[in-house]
């Protein structure tokens, strides 16, 4: 029974440490149902750690630990809960079911020794008590939804037999198979060619519209942010330096870092009336 006014996800003062190093420092933001939130920042800014922390994967996979803060999840028709404080067996039920995730490099993110079908079916059956046959049926359905041509054949393939774009579609199919409330996409298009990137971004957008899932898009690419995000969180050196609606961030950045960052972004079409190449008008920023 959650109040519809409450945000779907609320992160308050989250701090994550690896040993003595603070990877995420007092980070707070909110995610509303159905919206796309972009977390942007350069390498080492803490954006990926933040994403992993939301699913508490940072402890399992990277030996980091959440030292303070809360991650409040308010799923519709369910009791709100603090993910930062949830035991592992309960978390396991949330992963893949309420929150799921796709990663940057779809070749390494899929297990190379298992077929696509095996990995999809496993994802479904670990949360749903259904027969293998129905799970395969669901997997096939998802394959169609992510517009993989000839899905019956591709289902039997191994990851390395698919192209990069196909693999990322499989990842998306796997992540969205159980209609999660939140999809966390960690640099989902960075490893892909620009045409494929456009396809994947479009696909995520389409599916989001169909299912109403909220999306957290982790990226360093301001172009992607500008194209897909409703709101933006800008991170730098483990901290949030600025957040707000996407137009505000692009049109009227407040923080010097955001300004500097935007100045360095090449914008297609900005040179349309210039004859010679031109250097970037870099903004000096305080370190």
């Amino acid at each position, binding site marked *: 029974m959650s109040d519809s006014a409450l945000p779907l996800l609320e992160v308050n003062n989250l701090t994550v440490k690896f040993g003595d190093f603070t990877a995420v420092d007092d980070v707070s933001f909110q995610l509303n149902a159905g919206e796309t939130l972009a977390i942007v920042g350069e390498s080492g800014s803490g954006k990926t750690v933040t994403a992993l922390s939301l699913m508490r994967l940072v402890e399992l996979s990277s030996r980091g630990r959440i030292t303070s803060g809360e991650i409040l999840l308010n799923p519709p028709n369910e009791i709100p809960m603090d993910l930062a404080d949830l035991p592992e067996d309960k978390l396991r039920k949330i992963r893949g079911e309420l929150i799921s995730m796709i990663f940057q490099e779809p070749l390494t993110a899929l297990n190379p020794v298992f077929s696509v079908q095996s990995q999809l079916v496993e994802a479904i059956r670990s949360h749903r008590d259904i027969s293998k046959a129905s799970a395969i049926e669901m997997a096939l359905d998802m394959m169609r939804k992510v517009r993989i041509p000839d899905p019956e054949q591709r289902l039997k393939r191994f990851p390395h037999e698919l192209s990069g774009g196909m693999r990322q579609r499989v990842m998306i199919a796997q992540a969205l198979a159980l209609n999660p409330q939140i999809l966390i996409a960690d640099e989902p298009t960075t490893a892909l060619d620009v045409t494929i990137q456009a396809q994947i971004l479009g696909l995520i957008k389409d599916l989001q519209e169909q299912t109403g899932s909220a999306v957290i898009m982790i990226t360093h690419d301001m172009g992607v942010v500008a194209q897909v*995000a409703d709101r933006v969180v800008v991170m730098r050196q483990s901290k949030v330096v600025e957040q707000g609606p996407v137009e505000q961030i*692009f049109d009227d950045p407040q923080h010097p870092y955001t300004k*500097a960052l935007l100045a360095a972004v090449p914008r297609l079409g900005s040179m349309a009336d210039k004859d010679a190449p031109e250097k970037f008008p870099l903004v000096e920023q305080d370190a």
Partner: protein
Amino acid sequence: MSNTPLIECKALYKQFQAAEGAAVHAVVNVDLELARGETLAVVGESGCGKSTLANTIIRLEEPSAGQVLLDGVDISHMGSRELRQHRQKMQIIFQDPFASLDPRRQVGKAVSEPLRIHGVTPEAGMEETVAELFRKVSLPPDVMQNYPHQFSGGQRQRICIARALALQPELVIADEAVSALDVSVQAQVINLMMDLQEEMGLSYLFISHDLAVVERVAHRVAVMYLGQIVELGTRKQVFNNPQHSYTQKLLDAVPIADPKARKKHVMIEGEIPSPIWPKGQSPELVTMREVEPGHQVAIEDL
């Protein structure tokens, strides 16, 4: 300076053998010219053959057919001894600067290495020469004693540039040289490269998949698709007036860093076909037509 182009490729081919007699036709019938002081960008998606083209031009790969003329001299089948003198004029920088540097070697040594190999600088003046190169790429010379891991990605790429500049080349091939860098660092490195071009009269062959960056740096642009150049022209011609459907598709796919210019995505499905051809088969050669002076486009049968 003569009017001879610095680099001229004539009907350049490069194939690799694959299993069962099939062949990867990585570079197919490429004709290109690169003038002195010019930046020519080669764009295209992964597997289109742009890196192979770069490697073939600089003779890291021997061409399967065709010619590469450096300053009018055919270097495409030159023996390694002879080639060495010519190779001084061409240097290459790769995407991953960390992999290009020996982790156990002081960066100063790495930069001075080509000078030693070619014996162009006496040992006595070596330190000063290297210090000068460091200053050139905006690095303090006192970091010469440090090791690669002590530097950030951008700094490492500067070191690679310094090393490439040591022999005072005329051509620098930048093979995705800024793709792995954070956007602010990328901008700094690109600005540096432009400064150096101005200062030293360098020519760049700029291999990239990032059209937004290419738009910023290139004088001329070649669009590659399945080993062949399908559109070639000045940056303005190609970006403002793309003629080939593939160029249009590429440009259309680039996300523009402006939320007001949000594109309504028309889902274009499909992927680039494979450049691997079975034994006995080869890609059909495109024919170019000139749509405006210096702007050539492959004829498509639509």
